[in-house]
């Protein structure tokens, strides 16, 4: 198994365990209650907290694109990563394994695509950068000059670009996630009351 496949397997297992854990906790909190936790007042509150946490992820792309000095906002990137994991986990606790209505189910699916593509993309990207830097150091140690090193690394860099597909999924799917989430929230308020 290559380093990349091992990392993808670890990410896949971690995501599966996290989803299962959130749904098991929701089922545990529903024991002996007339309605599932997800449909209780506390469940709705968890949904609002999850939404608020999830919305924090948007500070990073906004800071990255808007501002006087367009330096990479490292701290907001960390917030982006943390909120991008914690927010969806809270939303999973809010939803439970009750997937009946299509609108919230589609919103959940869109959130899963955005979150998982973010985790996979970041994992693969970090791995590729680390491998590239290690190889660059090795080539320098072998006495190659800068042009020769770049020529050697060109193929590796091109391969890394192939993994950039995740970025074409991660950012644009956010639009669909936002639209579906707004529809779900409006629908819940319209039918369930304020």
């Amino acid at each position: 198994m290559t380093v990349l496949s091992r990392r993808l397997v670890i990410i896949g297992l971690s995501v599966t365990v996290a989803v299962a854990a959130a749904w098991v906790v929701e089922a545990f909190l529903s024991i002996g209650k007339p309605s599932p936790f997800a449909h209780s007042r506390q469940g709705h509150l968890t949904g609002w907290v999850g939404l608020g946490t999830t919305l924090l992820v948007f500070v990073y792309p906004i800071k990255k694109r808007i501002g006087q000095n367009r330096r990479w906002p490292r701290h907001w990137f960390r917030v982006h990563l943390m909120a991008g994991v914690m927010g969806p986990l809270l939303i999973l606790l809010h939803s439970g394994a009750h997937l009946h209505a299509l609108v919230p189910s589609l919103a959940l699916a869109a959130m899963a695509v955005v979150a998982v593509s973010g985790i996979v993309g970041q994992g693969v990207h970090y791995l590729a950068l680390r491998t590239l830097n290690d190889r660059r150091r090795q080539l320098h140690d072998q006495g190659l000059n800068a042009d020769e090193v770049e020529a050697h690394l060109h193929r590796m860099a091109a391969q890394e670009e192939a993994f950039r597909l995740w970025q074409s999924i991660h950012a644009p799917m956010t639009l669909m996630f936002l639209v579906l989430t707004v529809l779900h929230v409006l629908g819940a308020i319209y039918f369930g009351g304020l």
Partner: protein
Amino acid sequence: MYYLPLPRTVIPAVMIATVVLVIWLAWGSWQDPERFWAPGHLSRYHADISRCMSCHEAFRGPVTAKCVQCHSVARFAERTMPSAAAFHQEFIRQQHTCVSCHTEHRGALAHITSHAAKNPHGDFVFAVTGTTSCTACHVFEPAFGLPPAVLDNDQVRSVRAKGSGAHRPGHMAHCFQCHGGEFLKGSNAGIK
């Protein structure tokens, strides 16, 4: 960290896909609102209701004013014992809401009354009799705690007749000592 810009076609493609999705959701919501918005199927008691607004009021949720359009005083008087009718009328008079005790969208076989006495026969009895309510076969005593009496009507006679092949006809309470809930008690096979 440096990322390349997205391909130009990605954003327009996702925007078009989102617009198509929203149009489909609007069409689906018109055709089958429960499938698109409800958190679960309605119970067997309300399965004939197809319009959300029969029970829900916009931005207020399920309201008592909608419930009493069907569950009127006259209907209570017709279908329940006087003490139940009086209990519900007093409850409404005190400005309580129906949803403080009754839930919905929990599935066709769900119990929709919180803290109510559990049906000792399980949902099996509804499948056998084709009924949806305890009062189809029982009359409840006005005094709290007394066991309900069994009526002598078509549903009851039908259940007795169904049991006459495998078992000797007897009191239905005897049938449901074994055929309670979803399985045959004492059997490892879990016969339904």
